[in-house]
């Protein structure tokens, strides 16, 4: 790790909406100093748990995460003058990978609360600042370019297969698919771009999903279920709420259960499905993984029902296949260990 982080990577010093300027850490180039400052300022915000001395410990620390989560769930947590939001913003802007990881850990909760609170017309400038910081980071790091995929065509030979077909011109015959469209810089969250901005934050989260702790993934699955809304799931199948139903009080005429239902355009559904795919199918061995996988499959079920209600064929295909894959993975027939040696009765040299 180099001592001085390259300048073009670190965005300008944080200036949050209506924020009183605090002594910032942007000029400190030393990683450790940044981390220490972040830890210190966090300890003034989170008072119910002891902040561990290093960032790597903090990532693993369930008590602190729980304390931060419960602060985030307070009714006015998304406001522009919220200390925790400012801390998350500053921490992400530090451009230190471990610190950014720490912020990403809370993306499921922030995105979940933010989108579900939109119809309630609460001030959410704090959440928006954090999400915009993530969006801006991604916009800079890929220079606004779209992410594309060349869909392979088996009539061309590839590194994994031979083909007898005539060697055609490689580039022209391929199908190009855009999996994440171009990014324009946004200084504020315009409501029609909201889904895209949150979607990009989720893309970033997916990029680091293998480092995310269990609770964070559970938060995500919980958010998905809220977003999908009630689409005919049986009541008793609903899992216990990890996120307390704090909104239900604030919601006027709308049904409490349904308060989190949001429009689900593809720019949101696509990153959601990638994350759920990971949670559903990766690691079903350990007890913790299994809990995540179960929560993810419930979220998937909700989204499947939602896509039936929306008659959204792409989402029906994707969620349906995830559900069937999980079923197959749970089937003992498919759990044969092919790397096990055959247990013969006769052992020979």
């Amino acid at each position, binding site marked *: 790790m180099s001592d001085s982080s390259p300048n073009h990577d670190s965005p300008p010093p944080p200036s949050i909406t209506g924020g009183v300027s605090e002594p910032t850490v942007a000029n400190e180039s030393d990683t450790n100093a940044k981390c220490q400052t972040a830890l210190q300022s966090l300890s003034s915000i989170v008072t119910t748990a002891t902040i561990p001395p290093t960032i790597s410990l903090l990532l693993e620390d369930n008590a602190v995460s729980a304390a931060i989560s419960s602060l985030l769930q307070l009714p006015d947590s998304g406001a522009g003058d919220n200390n925790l939001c400012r801390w998350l913003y500053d921490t992400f802007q530090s451009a230190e990978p471990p610190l950014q990881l720490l912020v990403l850990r809370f993306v499921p909760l922030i995105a979940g609360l933010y989108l579900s609170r939109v*119809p309630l017309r609460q001030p959410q400038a704090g959440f928006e600042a954090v999400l915009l910081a993530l969006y801006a980071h991604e916009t800079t790091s890929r220079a606004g370019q779209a992410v594309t*995929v060349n*869909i*392979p065509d*088996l009539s061309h*030979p*590839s*590194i*994994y297969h031979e083909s007898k077909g005539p060697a055609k011109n*490689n580039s022209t015959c391929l*199908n*190009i*698919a855009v*999996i994440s469209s171009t990014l*324009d810089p*946004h200084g504020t969250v*315009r*409501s*029609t*771009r909201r889904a895209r901005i949150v979607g990009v934050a989720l893309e970033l989260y997916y*990029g*680091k999903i*293998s480092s995310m702790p269990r609770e964070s993934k559970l938060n995500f699955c919980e958010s998905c279920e809220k977003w999908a*809304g009630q689409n*005919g799931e049986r009541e008793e199948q609903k899992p216990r709420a990890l996120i307390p139903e704090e909104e239900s009080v604030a919601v006027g005429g*709308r*049904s409490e259960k349904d308060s989190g239902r949001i*429009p689900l355009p*593809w720019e949101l559904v696509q990153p959601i499905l*990638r994350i759920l*795919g*990971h949670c559903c*199918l*990766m690691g079903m*061995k350990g007890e913790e993984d299994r809990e995540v996988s179960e929560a993810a499959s419930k979220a998937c079920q909700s989204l499947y029902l939602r896509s*039936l*209600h929306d*008659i959204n*064929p792409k*989402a*029906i*295909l*994707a969620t*349906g*296949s*995830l559900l*069937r*894959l999980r079923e*197959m*993975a749970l089937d003992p027939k498919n759990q044969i260990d*092919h*790397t*096990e*040696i055959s*247990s*013969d009765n*006769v*052992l*020979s*040299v």
Partner: protein
Amino acid sequence: MLGDQSSELSESNGENESPTLRLCANGACMKTTEVEAKLDEGNIQDAESSLREGLSLNSEEARALLGRLEYQRGNVEGALRVFEGIDLQAAIQRLQVSAPPPEKPSTKKKVPREPPQQSASQHAASLVLEAIYLKAKSLQKLGRTTEAAQECKSVLDSVEKIFQQGIPDAQVDTRLQETVSHAVELLPALWKESGDYQEAISAYRRALLSQWNLDNESCARVQKDFAVFLLHSGVEASPPSLGSQVEGSYVPRNNLEEAILLLMILLKKFNQGKAKWDPSVIEHLTFGLSLCSQTSVLAKQLEEVMPGVFSRVERWNCLALCYSAAGQTSAAVNLLRKSLHKHERPDDLVALLLASKLCSEEPSLAGEGAGYAQRAVNNAQGMDEHLKGVGFRMLGLCLGKQAKVPTSDFERSRLQSESLKALDGAIAFEHNNPDLIFELGVQYAEQRNLKAASRYAKEFIDATGGSVLKGWRFLALVLSAQQRFSEAEVVTDAALDETAKWDQGPLLRLKAKLKISQSNPTEAVETYRYLLALVQAQRKSFGPLRTLSQMEEDKVNEFEVWHGLAYLYSSLSHWNDVEVCLKKAGELKQYSASMLHTEGRMWEGRKEFKPALAAFLDGLLLDESSVPCKVAVGALLSERGKEHQPTLPVARSLLSDALRIDPTNRKAWYYLGLVHKYDGRIADATDCFQAASMLEESDPIESFSTIL
């Protein structure tokens, strides 16, 4: 070799079989009970020596056999102790020396002939490698995955070192091959378990890109596992190294590409009968290709699947989903017609709903769609009752669309009221589905119930948090229909605030029209000027290398802008400007009925009736249902009919025809009134003028149907 290919496989472990376990070597056999007893006492030395005596083995062989015995008995700790007693690395060193030196730098697997010494060294190698492999398995079972991975890796490294020239196919020791195949498959799994994902990726690639002589089944398993890892791990793999590339071959650049490539190769293998069908492969491919929105590619893959894998209805329905997601509506509808046939699966809810949705988009299919929707409503029972609301919603949409197909006024109003009834029924099931709220609003608006329409429009904006552009446009249109232009402008401005610049085109056009309605043409022209600047910026920022899909996605449509401006100038009677704008628009789109209509207006304005009539008629030839052209011709003819009576019947039939298509066209009513007046039917004329004036009070500045 003695029968190590025993087919008596048993899932349960040692316990049951231990009485019949036997150890065999060099023609002698012995029961394991005695040895096991010694092992249980922890006396490895004794066990080893009794094997050496009983079966005339050397120390290494005896240890290897003991290790396997312990492993097979499920005592992995014991097995590990035994294996740790063998110096495996030294054994490998010895084997490397005894192996023939590489004569040619050939990487090919097949080498014509090998001396008989090869099989002896193969045998020894097999023994040592199996021991290392079992050591890795034992470590894995003890949860020491990183160590296990290192042992397993050393199996593969050793194979490469010992058999630098490869092993001749015909002479390969089956047991050796088995160990190698196992190790190739185990290594990536171990790295995954230990959390070392980059190592896992290189292990997968090593498995697939080097020559291990894997059989089809295990190769298929590795390919699938790797594809799944690439799809779902969230760990971005760097592209494969250049060394593995053959010239001209396709090299995937990222996870999704590599995963999709592997899955397609697997499917091909299944189709060619080279590997056993694995249903999870098509599901993973479905997931991957849907993520990329490439469902038409998926459809092609599904079509290539051999018959007998899916039932035909399943295949049709799945294909229909693929095609409809890819926008190929008619292909999807055709497939659904087959699968919903009474001899197939006529009650399938998803198919019924999808069919009704697709049909609701097309006036000529709407009647058929209403039938599907009704069947969906009837069949949504029990577990699926929650889908009843969706059925009603689709029914409402289909009936609403059907009402646009001209039949009779009576039929139209019947369909419209039934459509409303169905949508109201749907809202009882899904009272906070914003899409439904929107559709209900549009339906009310089309029937000129503007109060209800504006209520739903506002509710939609609230429910979606203003995130959907069409909600803003709809509210502005409803307000304009209520002649509340300044409020409509406020809404449009609010919408502009919430929109990124590339999405502002339709809103700006709306704004310009609102300015005209408020008799503020200079500001309207100003708005268009801004729009044109936007068009140019758009062209610059995306550059000339735009894909077709991007062209289609262009939010600011240049043709529409020029045409809109031409229309604007025509209402200001600036005929020369109209001509310039029309020329610009014509460069972008040669044939357009609406453009010809504006051109006709221009000639009309210049009092040149012949070219005007010609332009309108050309417009009608391009699009026989173009209402503005019909009305314009009717209007021209009725004006001239004052003197020349014979043209009046033609005008009348054209105007009636226009009203059959669009009964809310106030101009058509007005000119029809004129025709009646000139013909002396004063009562009819009065009715028509009344209708025209009523409609004028509720006319939106753009048709409501432009919204959906």
